[in-house]
């Protein structure tokens, strides 16, 4: 089974892209399955089952960072995908935490960015972009050729190795080659590792502390003047 992890900020067009991918995979005789990971609400699984009658699931990350949650549930989702007899597992994550990135070594990492988010966005999304294999830029139908080209150049500046696909995900324009790339990805092995290590270990805020102010926290912390400090357990 092949694994595709598709991340990207909210409403950039992840589902629209994956719908066209699913359609094209089915046309070529493949058996895709779909997993949606979100924080507290998602209905993609139901919509996609209704449209394509393929196996779908969803997981809510709730109080966890969605990327951390995915790391934990990914193994079980692969077992699930295999059990349903699928040959491509497509995972749509919420991808809201811009310090983490959800990609694993053997799978294909796809980030979906929208051209309408302004020319500086590629400079802001961090490892979610730099550790991806493919960056799909959607909504190119909405922006000027100029902004489209500047957006593309900025992705290339921060992530020179990432392949860029520009797409109008409403019509599926530009998505054929993404399907070729997915099908050229090797099957996933039994053990798989995250591509990058998620940042700063035990974050006191992640573990539930609510006091504000630097003196209330330990581990690696930021200071007001953009410094980084380390403090052992208080």
């Amino acid at each position, binding site marked *: 089974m092949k694994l595709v992890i598709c991340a990207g900020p909210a409403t950039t067009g992840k589902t629209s892209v994956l719908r066209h991918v699913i359609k094209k995979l089915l046309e070529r005789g493949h058996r895709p399955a779909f997993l949606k990971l979100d924080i507290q609400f998602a209905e993609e699984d139901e919509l996609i089952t209704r449209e394509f009658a393929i196996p779908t699931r969803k997981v809510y990350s709730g109080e966890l960072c969605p990327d951390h949650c995915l790391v934990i549930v990914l193994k079980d989702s692969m077992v699930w995908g295999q059990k349903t007899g699928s040959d491509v597992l497509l995972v749509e994550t919420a991808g809201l935490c811009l310090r983490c990135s959800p990609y694993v070594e053997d799978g294909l990492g796809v980030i979906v960015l929208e051209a*309408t988010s*302004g*020319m500086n966005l590629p400079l802001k999304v961090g490892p979610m972009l730099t550790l991806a294999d493919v960056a799909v*830029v959607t909504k190119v*139908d*909405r*922006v*000027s*050729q*100029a*902004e*489209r*080209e*500047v957006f*593309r*150049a900025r992705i290339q500046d921060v992530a020179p190795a990432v*392949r*860029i*696909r*520009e797409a*109008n995900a409403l*019509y599926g*324009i*530009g998505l*054929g*080659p993404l399907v070729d790339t997915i099908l050229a990805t090797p099957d996933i092995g039994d053990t798989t590792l995250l591509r990058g290590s998620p940042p700063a270990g035990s974050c006191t805020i992640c573990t539930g502390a609510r006091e504000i102010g630097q003196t209330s926290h330990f581990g690696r912390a930021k200071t007001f003047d953009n410094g980084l400090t380390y403090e052992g357990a208080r």
Partner: protein
Amino acid sequence: MIERISVLAGRGRRSEADAVPCLEFRMGDVVSIVGQTGSGKTTLINDIEMFAAGDTPSGRRVLIDGEPAPAAFRDDPACNPVAMITQHTTFLSDLPVGDFLHAHARIRKATPEEMATAVARTLDFANELTGEPIAPASRMTELSGGQVRALLIADATVICHTPIILLDEVENAGIHRGRTLALLRQHRKIFIFVTHDPNITLLSDYRIVMKEGRIAALLPTDEIERSLRPAVTGLDDMMSRLRDQLRCGQRVRPSDLDALRPAQLRSFRE
């Protein structure tokens, strides 16, 4: 350098084959696609933008210089020879116009002089297209609909190096159509207009007529139509002037309808 693109026939919504087995667009052509709403105009230019290879609902195939599009056209957006401007296309940036054009020119042009020239030429071009001059210091977000269209077309023509430009119903907002076509003809590119505008249609070299999703006919602008161009452009310009006058709070007088005078029409017949 691309010399021609061809569209091999597919079928329309009712599975009837396109009437033209092979449409050929050559460098320098200005073409219109006409037809009622829902007749398949957008679908046809989407086929071109996607380099359709029998993999779109129409089943059409697009060839570049007689061959299927090289993988690089689909693979590397920087090699894509097609620029498309639709009714929904707009600028998002709120930079001043001059800064914005520089940001774009920087990724295309090597030297500061080339950049400055490209920006100046783009602004001049845009200002020829619209009656409301664009100042380099005005912010992108302050531009009117007509100024935005003019700048979109000028930027795609001058700074982008794409040899094929698709325009999907962009003519409505206040741009000067006669002058646009004359200016575009100075650039050796393929311009394909999806249009409802009679002036643009007649100023094109030929028009493709769409019906029920199908290419129904290819009509070269014939000699009689060509001889009517000045009259139609005159009428179009007259309507633009009327629009401007009324917008500026002026009165309209019979002399403003000069283009309607029979004497003029007669002179075109000769």
